[in-house]
């Protein structure tokens, strides 16, 4: 991929620190600057969708972002959604606002490296539907093929996808996924549609995750709930009824509030008949390895 393409960078906000959003915008504008200087990106826009009950950004913040983006030849728009749409629906809503050949899905507080957009843009070749940046300081452990970068799924903490691929699979499945696994599902549907999903370690993004003093990564109740709920939906959607049965039994046995809430959400959808239509009956793309959706390196 060598010709200039149009780009939308989009992030969904919910109760973030305004300064983090401004800093993330400055970082991504710098990354776009270098991609533009290499002739990879032409016109571009930063779209922020705010799902917070009270606006994250005030006028001064917005002016600062607009100025930063404008200095690099871009435009900035803020959309207030007035409700917590979640990640999948929020990104679908933003993607519907503007046409561009490329869409960078970015966590609102993620700091993109200077070369990140250039590397990701160059990766969208040879049938690649989405290219994921490497997160630091905590790298995602999923495995990828050396040199080609092919991987099971792409995290949308920072990932570049083509509009063609996005439209071909109808974007994110916001009917099923609220916060987690919308990116796993999007990746797997891209692969079912014949696209490649690649991990680009040279594209780096700082995602502010932290460890405890003993090196553990504690999960909040909300994280447990949304992960458990998404695990049930993923197993159902990718034709693994035996995993659904096992997870339901496991969650009921565990009995914590978070996982029981996930079981209830799944059962409610099952009764209403609103679970997604199962895909990948031959298990060509879906990987359920332990609690993971890919082989992990560590």
């Amino acid at each position, binding site marked *: 991929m060598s010709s200039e393409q149009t780009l939308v960078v989009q992030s969904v906000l919910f109760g973030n620190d305004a300064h983090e959003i401004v800093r993330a915008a400055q970082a991504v504008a710098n990354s776009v600057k270098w991609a533009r200087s290499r002739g990879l990106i032409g016109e571009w826009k930063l779209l922020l969708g705010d799902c917070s009950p009270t606006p994250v950004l005030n006028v001064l913040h917005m002016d600062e972002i607009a100025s930063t983006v404008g200095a690099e030849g871009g435009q900035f728009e803020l959309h207030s959604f007035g409700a917590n749409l979640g990640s999948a629906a929020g990104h679908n809503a933003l993607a519907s606002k503007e046409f561009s050949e490329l869409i960078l899905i970015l966590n609102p507080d993620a700091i993109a490296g200077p070369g990140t957009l250039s590397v990701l843009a160059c990766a969208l070749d040879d049938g690649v539907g989405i290219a994921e940046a490497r997160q*630091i300081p905590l790298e995602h452990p999923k495995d990828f093929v050396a040199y080609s970068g092919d991987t099971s799924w792409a995290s949308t903490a920072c990932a570049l996808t083509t509009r063609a691929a996005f439209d071909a699979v109808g974007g994110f499945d916001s009917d099923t996924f609220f916060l987690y696994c919308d990116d796993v599902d999007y990746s797997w549907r891209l692969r079912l549609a014949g696209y490649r999903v690649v991990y680009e*370690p040279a594209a780096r993004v700082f995602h502010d995750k932290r460890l405890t003093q003993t*090196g553990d990564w504690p999960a909040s109740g909300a994280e447990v709930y949304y992960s458990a709920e998404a695990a049930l939906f993923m197993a159902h959607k990718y034709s693994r009824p035996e995993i659904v049965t096992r997870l339901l039994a496991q969650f009921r046995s565990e009995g914590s509030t978070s996982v029981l809430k996930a079981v209830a959400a799944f059962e409610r959808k099952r009764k209403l008949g609103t679970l997604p239509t199962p895909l990948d009956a031959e298990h060509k793309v879906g990987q359920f390895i332990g609690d993971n959706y890919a082989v992990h390196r*560590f």
Partner: protein
Amino acid sequence: MLSTGSEQLKVQLGADGLTSSSDHNVHTSTIDTLLGELMSGPHLDPDLRYALDSVRGLISAEDRDAPFLTVLLRTQGKRPEPLKDALLCLAAQTDQDFEIIVIDHDADLEGAEVVRNAIAEQPIWMADRISRLEVRGGNRAKPLNAGIHAATGRYVAVFDDDDLLFANWVEAFRTASQRSSGRMLRALAANQAVTPELWPQDQIGFRTISWPKADYPREFDQIAHLGMNYSPFMSWAFPSTLFRKFGFEFDEELTVCEDWDMILRGSLLLGVENVDVLTAIYRKWKGGQSSYTDHSRDSWAWSEAKVVQRINDSVLIMPGGFAPFIRHAMTLRGAHEQLGALLQSRAWRYSRPVRGALRVAGYTKRRIRRLLRRT
């Protein structure tokens, strides 16, 4: 140890029924405590009191307009991708009150260009705070000394070009500095294994192959550090007083262990404030070049011996709370000697057949383990 050691002391000695009386020394640096004690004499010569007070004032004075931290980023430009990671970690700090001095040490033409480009592509708000030094020749300490002479921050930290920082690295140091009264700051680091690998667009990259492991001791132990270094370089922030007022420099004769040497000498003079937050990842290279492969075993042994010799040749100030620690260590040494005598005794030798039988049952093994554990 100092403040932290005192806390550890209470735990360790508590089990032995001893107590620590060092709490009054917890919140000042060791040298400050020493000056305070010298000045506390009721019949101290007024001129000497005035002189000591002046010294105290000189040590504690700091430039409030200076940035909180100077980050010395040492590189040879041989690892472009980790260097870019390192700069991004700094760009993402929640506390941005720092300057960065990138020290190009003996980079070849290609490496120097890598370093220049990595700086040039930073956003303006980062690039404005980065300066670059070129240092030619010398060992690993030479670029550090060039860096401390150029530093303007109230603290100095060393961050090598292949390690990672969490977003709160600077913030955690600053928070701790507000209670540390001039002591050195020691945060927590994890280590993570990586191995060289060519990346999809032909970059010379690496593959991360382990989860970060928090293997280093959570609390600083001065005595343990006399034996070896348990604290990666980037887990420290050194008060600039150490360099600007006391004139400390890294030992340029050392081929390696320059960090351990400074940690030992500095901690004995100033004391250490524990920062109980994991703020960094030390990358361990499996394959490829690192300081472990760049230097021979002899070089490591020589440097370690030199560090120990220098400490041995120095006058050491013992911080408050140290005496019970030494007494405790001597007690342990006594237990070791008793064990040695037991192993040499006639009764022990005569009982060998019996022990053989017991060994089969695993009894002796457990007993000895318990004995050794106690020592």
